[in-house]
């Protein structure tokens, strides 16, 4: 929520103001190619700022690849995509060493995880071992091949997608591994007007392509923005509010499993990003509230008796958020 009524143009932008400007520009430029999905874009950018990873759930053909490619383009970062399949091996993700007959030595062949933005398409199609390899990379931000550790180039973010339509032949991620994702973003079809614009631009060729997006900053600019987001002020009352929300999910009758402490930490991290993207250097309860659904929905498990009646995690979470008293100093 933007409370500001007037803004004064800064004479000499501070690092924080510069970071705000960078993110605002990125948001504007990516928004031009990723039409009609403003909240999805905000959530992905917030996760990127917070240095987290995103699990995206949505129907195929809604521009997920487009989004990641566009973000990578804005800071001149590298982008790779892995299509997860049942026969995908861990080394196909992380990389492996090969013996080079010419040079008479082992040579490292780096896997697709050596990138800035990684799109892991249909992660639940791969068996648990391969999923675990990727999730370990996400957690450690480094890869160990033949006993040697290789750090991934910062910034590193994984956007994993799950196809909600097909469940046949899939390996759903266990709750403990889902917890590694900072957010779960649900992507739905755009509004009629936006969809018309997408179709029209595609047919006439007038639309901006992801590869044509002008670079906003370099990798250092993104790292500076991430540092600025981390420096956003949070009062103890706001932290208590985030913890109260996470604890409420554990006490709610509608959930068989509630969010852990990592959930509360993630809430604050994402809220800081939201605050920075709104131009504030402090977090308000509204930021926590905005982060609650995407941060908590994959960390809870709906009780079977409610799941069978069609209730989703979002329904119960929304009720919890509405009924948990907001903080006040």
């Amino acid at each position, binding site marked *: *929520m933007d*409370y500001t*009524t007037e803004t004064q143009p800064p004479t000499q932008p501070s690092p924080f103001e510069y970071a705000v400007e960078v993110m605002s520009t990125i948001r504007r430029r990516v928004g031009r190619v990723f039409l009609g999905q403003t909240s999805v874009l905000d959530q992905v950018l917030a996760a990127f700022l917070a240095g987290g990873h995103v699990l995206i759930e949505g129907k195929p053909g809604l521009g997920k690849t487009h989004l990641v490619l566009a973000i990578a383009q804005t800071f001149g970062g590298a982008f790779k995509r892995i299509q997860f399949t049942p026969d995908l091996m861990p080394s196909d993700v992380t990389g492996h060493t090969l013996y080079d007959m010419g040079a008479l030595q082992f040579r490292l062949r780096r896997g697709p995880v050596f990138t800035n933005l990684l799109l892991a398409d249909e992660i639940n199609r791969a068996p648990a071992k391969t999923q675990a390899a990727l999730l370990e990379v996400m957690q450690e931000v480094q890869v160990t091949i033949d006993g040697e550790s290789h750090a991934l180039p910062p910034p590193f973010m994984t956007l994993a997608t799950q196809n909600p339509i097909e469940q046949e032949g899939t390996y759903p991620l266990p709750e403990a591994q889902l917890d590694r994702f900072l957010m779960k973003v649900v992507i739905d079809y755009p509004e009629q007007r936006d969809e018309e614009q997408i179709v029209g631009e595609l047919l006439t060729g007038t639309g901006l392509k992801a590869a044509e997006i002008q670079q906003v900053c370099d990798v250092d600019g993104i790292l500076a923005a991430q540092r600025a987001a981390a420096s956003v002020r949070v009062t103890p009352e706001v932290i208590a509010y985030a913890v109260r929300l996470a604890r409420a999910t554990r006490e709610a009758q509608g959930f068989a499993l509630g969010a852990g402490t990592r959930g509360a930490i993630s809430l604050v991290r994402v809220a800081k990003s939201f605050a920075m993207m709104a131009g504030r250097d402090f977090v308000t309860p*509204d930021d926590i509230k905005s982060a609650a659904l995407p941060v908590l929905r994959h960390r809870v498990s709906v009780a079977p*008796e409610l799941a069978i009646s069609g209730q989703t995690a979002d329904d119960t979470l929304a009720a919890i958020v509405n*009924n948990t008293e*907001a903080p*006040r100093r």
Partner: protein
Amino acid sequence: MKLEEVTAELRPRGSWEAVDLGFAMTRRHFPLLLAAWSLTVVPLWALLLLASRWVPVGIVLIVIWWLKPVYDRVPLFILSRSLFGATPRLRDVLHAWPGMLVRRLPWLLIARVPWWIAGPAFSWARPLLLPVIDLEGQRGRAWKDRRGVLLRQAGGTAVSLVMLCGLYEWILVFALLTLGSQMTSDPLGAFELGDAFMETVFRNGQMAPWLEWSLIGGYLVAMTLVELFYVGGGFGLYLNSRTTLEGWDVELAFRRLARRLGKAAAIITAAVLPLCCAGIAHAETPPSREAQAIREVLAHEDFKVHERETGHWEREGDDPKPGFNAPGWFETLGTVLFYTVITGLCALLAWLIWKNREFFSRGERANRAAPAAPRTMMGMDVAPDSLPDDIAAAARARWESGDARGALSLLYRGALSWLIHAAHAPVRDGDTEGDCLRHADVLAEPVRRDYFTALTWQWVTVAYAERAPAALEVERLLGSWPFAGEEKR
């Protein structure tokens, strides 16, 4: 009844084979059955549905369902007469229809429920027992005896037939509706159709008229198609039971034999008759060996009519325990225990419902009345009686004493109090500053809305950024308090 004119092959069959015979009879006369149904039952439905202008459509549908035994009389009338080669014309059916409508109607309607007046089995074995009422005209003791015999013979199959036809009727309803739904631009799923049907029955007037009438139409079409075969199957069972019990097939065989042999039979009869008379005369001298043999045969286990009797053992005589034969207090204790258990179960049920109230109230939350205005909001007391009479003056006093935070807090509390109590915004416990601002955006006029926005921004800056507010801005807020006199309404 002329058995020799029967058009079906009568022989003892298995129960489901008999049902199949009934279905075959229905198939054979289907055009006539359908035409008769359309001219008798369908107009009755039209009249009943006309009543839905004044009566909830759910009640009309229940009445339509309740009158099923009356409709069953139409196919039964046709099938029973067709069996004996006297297939009625439509005119005959129409002529008989008023009689079908009124004949023993109260009894039939009461008998829809498993009640002792009609016998608990009637509602579960109606296709088998309806011919006893309609064709045989049995009543009282004769009806009970006949019912008992038929149920022993084919009761299980009749109940299965009722259940299968009921199930098939609903499958057909949803199949028809799903098919129709697929033809539309916005097809509904099976569960949505189920919900829609329940809405039609229980919540009159809340459905789109086209959907409501499609659901009713689908149900009536399915009932028409299934009911004709249902009655046919039951009639087949009834025929088979009587064939087996009364030896209709044997009688028919004798009659055909008699017809074929003709005169020869008369000669043989004339020759044998004296011998028979002698035999009869001999038989009249009691007690004969034959009579004794018959009695022995009838005394066999196979001819015994079994009746179930229930009872209980009572201990008497030997070794009574002292004090145990005090039936008065023991009975009282039992009664108390019984009611205690019942009360406990009711309490348990109530507790379970209360504990899982979220499950029952899902989706109803939005329909509930707005909750009472909160007294505290985000940890601040926003009740009118907790605020000073002149909020702006009190806030200025705090500001001038150096308590900037206190001044803004008081202004914000006053603004919230106005939002809740004067503007009647639906504010909840979990609402944040942003939510309150959204309420103000909707409810307040531009001056107050702008003031609320500026105040909120100053307040969150003080509260969460822990920064002192700009003096100029606070002065402006203090000087332009727009809720004077209304914040405590």
